[in-house]
């Protein structure tokens, strides 16, 4: 395969590329799904191919193929150069990716137990046990239990002299219970909803999740929600569970700090950002307890790797420091654009902070969230609830919607409890909260401590055309927000 990569780089240069990189990706994904006590399927997906990205005549081109031959490597490189030259017909300025990045090395996700060494029978045993435990609860209409395991081997090489080999391993799982009443449908999920919880860890992660142990509780909660009171329509204090804080970070901080969005290149699809460049270093994003990082070096995070898909090393970057907006996630090209726009400063270096990732060999890298984290605070959850005279505790996301600038959001949760006199009291169904991003984060007055902090995995973050699904992580603990509009539909 080394020859194929070298041939592609050589061919691109011979055809006129001033820069080229090539990624060869081999991915194996194993999925298991049990529904209503029946194994719906076990599948193994094997996917392999390469993509060549070039700059020619000052513009980008990209082509890819699953045919792994030397002739195809030459043809694909030539096609990428042809495409770049077509792009150059309507360029405004030459692409500037800054000084060369030369990296050589290897990275492998550290795992205690390689999940691909665990027999499928063992995996099914866990799923069937969890599914049976949910179905054992009266009133449950449908159940689902899922596991996903991923191994991705990729080699990156560039005409600047980089040669990087990486192996990323992921494990993910979820269970769901659906309860149906005469006029109501309620769903509960564990460990997370909207896909599943996933980490760059091995089988030990699945064991820690203990799906069968949590199955009866979530099934009982789904049934109890059928007859629960609806969440009141009011303005109150809200405490969000850790996984919902993770979703809040993802949507209202993670996306608006992607510098390609800020510069408008996602305007027609994913949208733009309210965090425009003049706000860097001056804008109060949140209260003083809000500290957010983008950290691709966190062990176990779903956005953890050795190098990004431009060959830039994984990094930890401050995004919000004591409430002040101080950093973007950047690529080589956008880091240079920001430098040209704002000039050098403590927040602007002109160098990429290593967040470019592609969802596969057939996609170009885009700026994608690594692990975007709300750093832990000082509170124990029990103390935080005891400190809250009146409010609502909401947990586990059910629906999420946010505008194209990432300002106006409305999120629904699966479950809520009323807080009265410092105690968690009656169950509430269909809770929804809504707000404006900076107002909301400025109203955050407490974040729970490291004992409650989990790096939640989001394996289905959509962006780009053609569409790409990225795997991102979000370290988060429960947090409290004041004066939040809450309500219920139905």
């Amino acid at each position, binding site marked *: 395969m080394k020859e194929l990569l070298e041939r592609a780089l050589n061919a691109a240069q011979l055809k006129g590329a001033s820069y080229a990189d090539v990624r060869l990706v081999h991915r194996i994904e194993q999925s298991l*799904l049990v*529904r209503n006590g029946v*194994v*719906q*399927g*076990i*599948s*193994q*997906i*094997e*996917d*392999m191919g390469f993509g060549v990205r070039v700059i020619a005549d000052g513009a*980008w081109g*990209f*082509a*890819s*193929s*699953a*045919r792994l031959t030397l002739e195809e490597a030459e043809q694909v490189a030539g096609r990428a150069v*042809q*495409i770049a030259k*077509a*792009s150059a*017909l*309507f360029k*405004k300025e030459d692409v500037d990716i800054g000084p060369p990045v030369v990296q050589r090395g290897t990275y492998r996700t550290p795992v205690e137990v390689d999940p691909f060494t665990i*027999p499928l*029978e063992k995996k*099914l045993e866990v799923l*069937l046990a969890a599914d049976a435990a949910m179905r054992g609860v009266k009133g449950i*209409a*449908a159940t689902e239990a*899922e596991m996903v395991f991923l191994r991705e081997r990729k080699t990156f090489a560039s005409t600047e002299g980089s040669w990087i080999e990486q192996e990323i391993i992921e494990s993910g799982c979820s269970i769901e219970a659906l309860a*149906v009443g005469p006029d*109501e*449908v309620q769903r509960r999920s564990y460990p997370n909803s909207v896909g599943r919880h996933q980490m760059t860890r091995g089988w030990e992660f699945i064991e820690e999740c203990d799906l069968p142990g949590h199955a009866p509780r979530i099934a009982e909660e789904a049934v109890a929600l059928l007859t629960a009171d609806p969440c009141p329509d009011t303005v109150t204090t809200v405490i969000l569970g850790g996984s919902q804080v993770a979703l809040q970070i993802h949507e209202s901080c993670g996306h608006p700090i992607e510098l390609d969005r800020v*510069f*408008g*290149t996602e*305007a*027609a*699809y994913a949208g733009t950002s*309210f965090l425009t460049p003049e706000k860097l270093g001056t*804008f*109060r994003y949140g209260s003083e307890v809000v500290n957010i990082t983008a950290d691709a070096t966190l062990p176990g995070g779903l956005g953890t790797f050795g190098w990004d898909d431009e060959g830039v090393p994984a990094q930890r970057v401050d995004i919000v420091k004591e409430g002040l907006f101080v950093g973007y996630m950047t690529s080589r090209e956008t880091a240079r654009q920001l430098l040209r726009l704002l000039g050098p400063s403590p927040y602007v270096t002109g160098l990429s902070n290593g967040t470019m990732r592609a969802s596969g060999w*057939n996609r*170009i890298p885009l700026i994608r969230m690594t692990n975007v984290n709300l750093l832990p605070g000082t509170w124990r959850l029990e103390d935080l609830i005891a400190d809250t005279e009146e409010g609502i505790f909401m947990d586990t996301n059910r*629906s*999420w919607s946010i*505008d194209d600038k990432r300002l106006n959001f*409305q999120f629904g949760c699966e479950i809520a409890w009323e807080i009265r006199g410092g105690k968690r009291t009656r169950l509430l169904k269909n809770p*929804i909260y*809504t707000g*404006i991003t*900076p107002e909301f984060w400025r109203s955050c007055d407490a974040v729970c401590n490291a004992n409650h902090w989990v790096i939640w995995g989001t394996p289905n973050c959509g962006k780009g*055309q*053609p*569409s790409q699904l990225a795997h991102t992580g979000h370290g988060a603990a429960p947090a409290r927000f004041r004066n939040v509009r809450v309500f219920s*539909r*139905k």
Partner: protein
Amino acid sequence: MLGESHIRELLENALRISPADETEIVLEAHDSALTRFANNTIHQNVAEVNTEVAIRVVLGKRVGSAITNRLTEEALEKAIAEAVALARLQPENPEFPGLPDPQPIEPVTAFDEAVAGATPEWRARAVGAVCRWAESAGASAAGALSTGIYELAVANSRGVFAYHVGTEAHFTTVVMCDEGSGYAHRAAWRLADLDVEAMGRSAVDRALRSRNPRPIEPGVYPVVLEPYAVDDILSWLGYAGAGALAVQEGRSWMNDRIGRPIMSPLVTIWDDGRDVAGLPLPFDFEGVPRQRVVIVEKGVPQGPVYDTVTAAREGRRSTGHALPRSRPQTASLGPIPLHLFMAPGEVTLEEMIRQVDRGLYITRFWYTRLVHPRDCVLTGMTRDGVFWIEKGEIAYPVQNLRFTQGYVPALAQVRAVGTERWVLSEGFGFTCVPALLLEAFTFTGVTEMPGH
């Protein structure tokens, strides 16, 4: 492009070497390219050639699957062996009804040489014209133009062999100007049906007209919805409740309502994978011919679409709406209508506006998500042009609003249906939809940006 005879040979060879009781092979091949632009310049230009072969094997009532994107004999043999090994490990699925038997499938022609032969230079010139037009108007255009060939083949050991080749072209643009923005999008299998320049001009015009939007209070308003917004309504109704699994599990908006009027009698919705007015695909991912299924007839739900599993549960035949079954996760979705049509009406967009005394004109919805399944309650934002209508005329642009609204009750409020329909597709499947005038639509919020 691989071609039918090559694919048939490949699939028949693979079926021959499979040791399973039953085997199904689904092959999808893409040869596609996309040119993306923003800030009035091309910033991304990509091409992809890929093939995916999904193998599903059956041992008694045990089912295993494997997917590969490599077409060599060894790779296919390995994938079959993997699928068999996976099937052996499973407990029996007592519900598995077996693979479908062959049925006659009438081919549909939806291949356009002009799309198949579109070059990077052609795409660059087409989007370049939109960028120049936007720039000359002081606006900024972003979007994407894609062209491609898609081949789908399904073969199984009971004798099914189905093959379809089609072309697809998509254009989308968002044009921004100060606080105004405009949007245009269409999908077609014929290049002649995709007027990129006209769409660009329309989006620029909308962006210019939507500058300086005035504040507006949330509330319940009559609305004129452009087909883009209607596309969102139909897509969600299809995804979240028009498939048999959702109905069987009691989470569909159709539950307890089939045969009862719940929408305006002006509303008729059907799914038709064979109609060349859309982006046809004449059979599903089990090789079953797609039937035309009426989902709502004059406001009355008629019933969902089926695949072989959900049909067997009710002693019916599949309507040809299976999703790819080789990925276990699609089992959670069940069958889904991907080729949705809404019957046109007799009122033009201009006449709809004239019928509104005080209300809103909505270009499209954005980032809509299901809040509750029973009434298909969605929340989302408006985007790319919202206008206040006063005494039958567009008066001025207003700020974007958040809505939280049941799509089923919304369609009970239809007062008029547009004459013209647009084919819209953001990826998997499409809708062919008219504009609508609704008596009432619930908006629950607006955006106010706090300062530093």
